[in-house]
């Protein structure tokens, strides 16, 4: 007995000693944090992913608010940042005072909004008129009483096309004429058939059948996979199935390059000029298309209006987690970064398209042209596409269902791994399971 007791005690003493040492360091760290908060200075932590382009905007904000210091933590890709954020929010500590939320992520939090501060309580109501209605409403709870995010960028939609390939196939190359020849999706497909029938080009018309889904569904339906009560309707929403069939019919007609989006093959397809058109959100132009096509293809791309009018694809928000100790200051920062000045600074730095209406009208954005895309007036084209857009209800799990279930199945059908019907059934069964 006594031997066991003695041994146990010894181990306990040793454990305690180490524990105290560890605890000591933890405590001293905490003291540091508190100390920095003293003396009237407030330190805010801003967490964003990818590149929000806020370096200059933060400097301007700090200059205007000398009592606030901003630490900008760039958290890498969204897929690295999001799981961490989920954990921090659940644990009640670790999240920044202001966090960047991608649209799809934000929609997930609209349903579980208790982790975020209600920005309406902090006076955000006055900002409503600054944003397009749909951008504002996305961050609003269904009862309209709580706002959890302020809009940063939007992804206005256009149609990027390869002028040189159009010319080889004997199609018009002028962006106004091209826009008119593809004012509806039916026209767009007919033009693609003409392109192929010319027999003078090896390239396909479109990169992948799946590229049609986002723009076409969002133009023709007020809902996508979910109705406004967040019930899964992907299998019964006629527009979703119609677009699925339309895309796969294009693939069957040999109009698509069957490249899996965001894969190495897709990247290589740009360089190899494997397709002639691509529906492109604003953030995709310089960041994705120009980068992947490379300098050798500079000046060969151009930008026309998207068939069927406007559209939006992607975009983000800034939110204030409920765990912040400085909600007022955090709101000030979010408000500044989503103001006209903040938007334009981010546009200048990272090409993020403003969601602020005044920002969209500002010459700094409106008169922007893109050299890589044959001098296309990107500001004008993308700006118009966003203003004319009507709101579409996406639902909390939209992005997950699209990106991880429906798109992969549609690609499998496009490549002939499965029949269209079999892929559709699988996708819908899985989506229903994920939605429940």
């Amino acid at each position: 007995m006594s031997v066991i007791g003695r041994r146990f005690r010894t181990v306990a003493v040793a454990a305690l000693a180490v524990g105290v040492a560890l605890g000591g360091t933890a405590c001293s760290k905490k003291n540091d944090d508190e100390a920095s908060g003293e003396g009237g200075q407030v330190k805010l932590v801003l967490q964003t992913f990818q590149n929000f382009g806020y370096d200059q905007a933060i400097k301007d904000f700090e200059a205007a608010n000398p009592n606030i210091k901003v630490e900008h933590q760039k958290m890498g890709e969204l897929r690295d940042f999001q799981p961490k954020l989920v954990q921090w929010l659940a644990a009640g500590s670790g999240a920044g005072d202001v966090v960047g939320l991608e649209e799809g992520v934000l929609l997930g939090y609209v349903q579980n909004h208790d982790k975020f501060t209600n920005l309406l309580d902090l006076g955000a109501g006055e900002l409503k008129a600054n944003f397009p209605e749909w951008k504002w409403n996305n961050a609003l709870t269904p009862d309209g009483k709580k706002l959890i995010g302020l809009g940063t960028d939007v992804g206005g939609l256009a149609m990027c096309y390869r002028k040189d390939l159009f010319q080889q196939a004997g199609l018009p190359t002028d962006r106004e004429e091209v826009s008119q020849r593809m004012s509806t999706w039916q026209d767009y497909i007919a033009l693609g058939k003409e392109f192929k029938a010319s027999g003078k080009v090896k390239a396909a018309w479109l990169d992948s059948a799946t590229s049609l889904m986002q723009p076409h569904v969002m133009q023709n339906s007020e809902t996508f996979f979910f109705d406004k009560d967040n019930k899964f309707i992907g299998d019964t929403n006629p527009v979703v199935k119609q677009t699925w069939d339309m895309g796969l019919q294009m693939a069957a007609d040999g109009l698509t390059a069957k490249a899996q989006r965001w894969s190495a093959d897709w990247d290589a397809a740009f360089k190899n000029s494997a397709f002639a058109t691509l529906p492109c959100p604003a953030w995709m132009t310089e960041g994705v298309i120009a980068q992947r096509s490379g300098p050798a293809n500079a000046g060969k791309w151009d930008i026309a209006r998207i068939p069927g009018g406007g559209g939006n694809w992607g975009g983000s928000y800034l939110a204030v987690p409920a765990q912040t100790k400085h909600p007022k200051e955090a709101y000030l920062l979010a408000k500044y970064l989503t103001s006209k000045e903040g938007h334009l600074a981010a546009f200048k730095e990272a090409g993020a398209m403003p969601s602020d209406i005044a920002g969209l009208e500002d010459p700094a954005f409106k008169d922007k042209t893109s050299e890589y895309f044959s001098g296309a007036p990107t500001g004008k084209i993308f700006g118009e596409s966003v203003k004319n857009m009507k709101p579409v209800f996406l639902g909390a799990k939209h992005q997950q269902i699209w990106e991880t279930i429906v798109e992969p199945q549609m690609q499998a059908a496009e490549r002939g791994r499965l029949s269209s019907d079999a892929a559709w059934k699988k996708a819908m069964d899985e989506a229903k399971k994920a939605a429940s």
Partner: protein
Amino acid sequence: MSSTVGAVPPSAAASPPSSVPQHRRPSYRFGRWDIKYSPYLYIAPFFVLFGVFGLFPVLYTVYVSLFDYELLSGTKEFAGLENYRVLMADAQFWNAAYNTVGIFVLSTVPQLVVALLLANLLNRQMRARTVLRMGILIPNITSVAAVGIIFALIFADRYGLINWLLGTVGFDPIAWRDNRYASWFAISFMVDWRWTGYNALIYLGAMQAIPKDLYESAALDGASAWRQFWTITVPLIRPTILFTVVISTIGGFQIFTEPLMYGFGLVRGGADHQFQTLAMYIYEQTFTGNAEYGYGSAMSWLLFMMIIIFALINFALVRRSVKGEKK
């Protein structure tokens, strides 16, 4: 309480006031304390760190696995064995288990065999021996993400190097991702590229400990090189082979980054989950969507058990098939 009393050295408790000057007693006592307790203190950091970062998470995983715990919505309700019940009927889980075992077999068997042969070659007298020996470790110290990116390009479906080579000699391209077994092969290739050299080096270390005179006498008896390899080298390094088998089993069952990079960063593992491994499925359930921590924990725990079982099976299999020293 009795143990506390018992812990006081009886001699100290019972001894009469001694004549030793008072000021010497503390240092005497400290010396005894030092001898008695210091060893525990020295090894304590390992146990404390293991407890905090090893044991506690494992036990906590078991605890969490008994809950319906969704991080996104904040639900946390006791569910008993419900997670395990759902898991048993989860086709995607068993699909992932099938992929994991398949990729494991396809990668580990050739890997260890080649490593053994490679080590045998390197165990000879040759030029630039050190350079060659260190060289085989280079794939192992390259970043796994970089390896993943390069191999995803080599095995790309349309513009990949291998399909291009196949095309130049007139073969049809291989659907490296749509075909389940092609994807397993490519992922196994990636794993082997990184780990064969590492295992070869471990085998080589063990081979160098074999006394040279065994080979000399075997050669005098007329044993061929192959015979020497099978009857001297392999039996004598048997403990090392068992070690690598167990380590490879543990690593192989946790495979994550290679198939993830191969699927261009999607945890889905192909349109039909044809190369989604257990670790990927655990990640998918735990960190995406609803962040189902309870369900993910149940899966992690089951994976832990599977690793132990497979490690034991493999250990037994290899111990039987490789004859050791006769005792």
